[in-house]
């Protein structure tokens, strides 16, 4: 049972390394980093309680927001989805990504207290 799981995972990893363009891999690495940071924050909150709640929220939402924006960027940049995002060039997607991040971080900085 576990053998099949590990073989599936290994196969998936192989396919992934081969087929995904490096741009997407970069974004995936970024996503992974954000995910880890979010998990660490959540663990901390579970451990010591929610004081101060606003700080926890802003930090966690920053992680979530960044994750979402990066995921959107990945979608828009993925050559396989080119059909759906014809009007939006890669650079445009990136610019949107940067702009949205500005807004997100302004809000987060305001809320962090």
């Amino acid at each position, binding site marked *: 049972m576990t053998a099949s799981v590990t073989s599936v995972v290994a196969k998936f990893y192989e396919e992934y390394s081969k087929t995904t363009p*490096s741009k997407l891999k970069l974004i995936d690495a970024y996503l992974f980093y954000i995910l880890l940071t979010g998990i*660490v924050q959540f663990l901390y909150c579970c451990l010591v309680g929610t004081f101060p709640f606003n700080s926890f929220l802003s930090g966690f939402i920053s992680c979530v927001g960044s994750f979402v924006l990066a995921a959107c960027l990945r979608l828009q940049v993925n050559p396989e989805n080119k059909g759906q995002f014809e009007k939006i060039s890669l650079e445009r997607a990136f610019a949107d990504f940067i702009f949205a991040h500005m807004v997100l971080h302004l809000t987060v900085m305001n809320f962090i207290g």
Partner: protein
Amino acid sequence: MRFTAFTFNILLLCASSLGITSFLNSNDQSRFKDILLSGLNSDDAGSLDYAIRGLTFLEFDIPNKDSLCQKLKTKLESQTTETLFHVGKASASLSCALQLSNTQKEKLETTITATNGVSEIFLATGALSSFGITLDAPKVLKALNTALKKDDSISSLGQAFQVASLLDGDVSSVFGRIEDVVVQADQIDGKMLQFEGGLSVTALVISGAYKLANTVGQAPFISKEQANKFAEYFVSRKSVQTVKGVYYLLEATSVLADNAFHIPVAITLASKAAVSKSEPKFQVKVTNILGKGLGSLTIIADSATRTLDDAVVLSQKQLTPKDGLFELDLMSSNPGKGVYRVALSASSSEDTRLVGNVGAIVEVKVLTKIAIEETEIGTADSDQSTAAKLRKIIYPKKLDGSLEADSHQKLILKFLLRDTLTKELVTVHQAFVRLTHRESQQEIFFVAEPDVNDAYKFDLDLATKAKDFLYLSGHYSMDLIIGDAVIENPTVWQIAELQLSFITPSAGQPKSSKAAEMYQMKPEIKHMFREPEKRPPGIVSNAFTLLAIFPFVIFIVLVSRLGVNFSSLSFSLSALGFHLSIGGIFVLFVSFWLYLNMFQTLKLLVVIAIPAFVSGNYMLTQIAAKRRGATKQN
């Protein structure tokens, strides 16, 4: 005698309402005198005038007449009609013999025109007449009537009456307006009449109306009831504190005490309000509104009605005059105890002006002595297994020895209350039994209830009431308290000494009385400031901070493993500008967190964002162009 009876019957037929309930007595008048004397020190012509004329009404000898006349003389050249009015009236009252100069006289006479209004006419005519100058009656009357057409408010009409009372000739046009004014009066509580504007307006109108009626020689269109109600209003205002108010009150009441038509009568109780066998008589005083006598009067008590059951105990009994008062022996009619409303009527053989003299009510209490009889006290078993052992006691003696009782027993007290006048058994408002613990002085009260035959019985079951005693056993003294509104001899009778023993229940100790505990010092409340929330220990939070930053390291490692294409990093102006701007925004956000506020941040953000946008746009287009070029090549 027959004539008296005849007049009395006529008066009864007129059935005028109750008279005034009080009058301005000597206390009130001395208070007025003090207020008016303080007004004499004023420099204002109005206050001086009111004070002087008020003191004249009180028939008080005004001190320092010469200095007052001097003060008034200095105001003779005043430009206002009102000052001249007050100076004139005051000097006439003091007999200062001041004279108006011709210029002033002419000025006043020219003021009497319809266009100046009723008030100016009133002041000018009053001033002229008080300096002894005769008035041109037809001219004044014409001006007055024309002015009234424009302004016939209540105070203007009052002033018009005062003016018309000074004129000779036919003033019936003004006299007829009295009726118009009186219907505008407001009734209060069904007992008083006043005009809107209060004391000064009402006094102005009423004194004006009666003065005018005196001049014309005809009774004014004010009914006897209305005259009484106005008088009642004036009496209710006797607590007035201002000089002007006191003057107006005295003017109005002087008119009501002595005019040719209506004299309101005050029939008031002049002795204690309680009569008993030892003091069977009560006295009433019959006066006018200023407290002066009214000549020879016959006072008859029409009826005396008990408030409790409307029983009438006497009718048509004449009161005997004594020392200026009238007294009646109420006890001779054998009234029972209670509160009685005695209706009195005063009639005069000569004076037909009296109003409010029929049916005045005076409340008198008839007291009686109570005798406590057939008192028995004893104990019985709660479960009624044995009969009660009762011992007789006679008031006011105390029971010999002490009575013992414990939780199995009941304490029984029986007694009868008898009215010594009617020899009947009665119930009273208060029949209490008080038990006082000797050492702690703890008291407890119980109520003794009468049964259907008015025999009082007090039954105390010690077991059920033990809680009320707080289970405090020991030596008690027992008192019987009898009280009522209409008995002469309320009593506290120390009946017996008791020895009570209670069984405390298993649950509690016999606490020292709850009262003692209630009044002990309570624990001090210390204010607790809001405690800061518990923080995790520094080590934990620091560790997690590092842990949160650690993924960035992992990211860098991953990126480097993926292989970043550093070669295509161009150092063009736009790229540099873009990266610097983004870095600048990052720094801005950190400083926003640390010390800026939102407004400053937004301002700076706008400043930095513009180059960021411009450079970013330029840079990205360049990259896009390069990419398309590359793909085209492919």
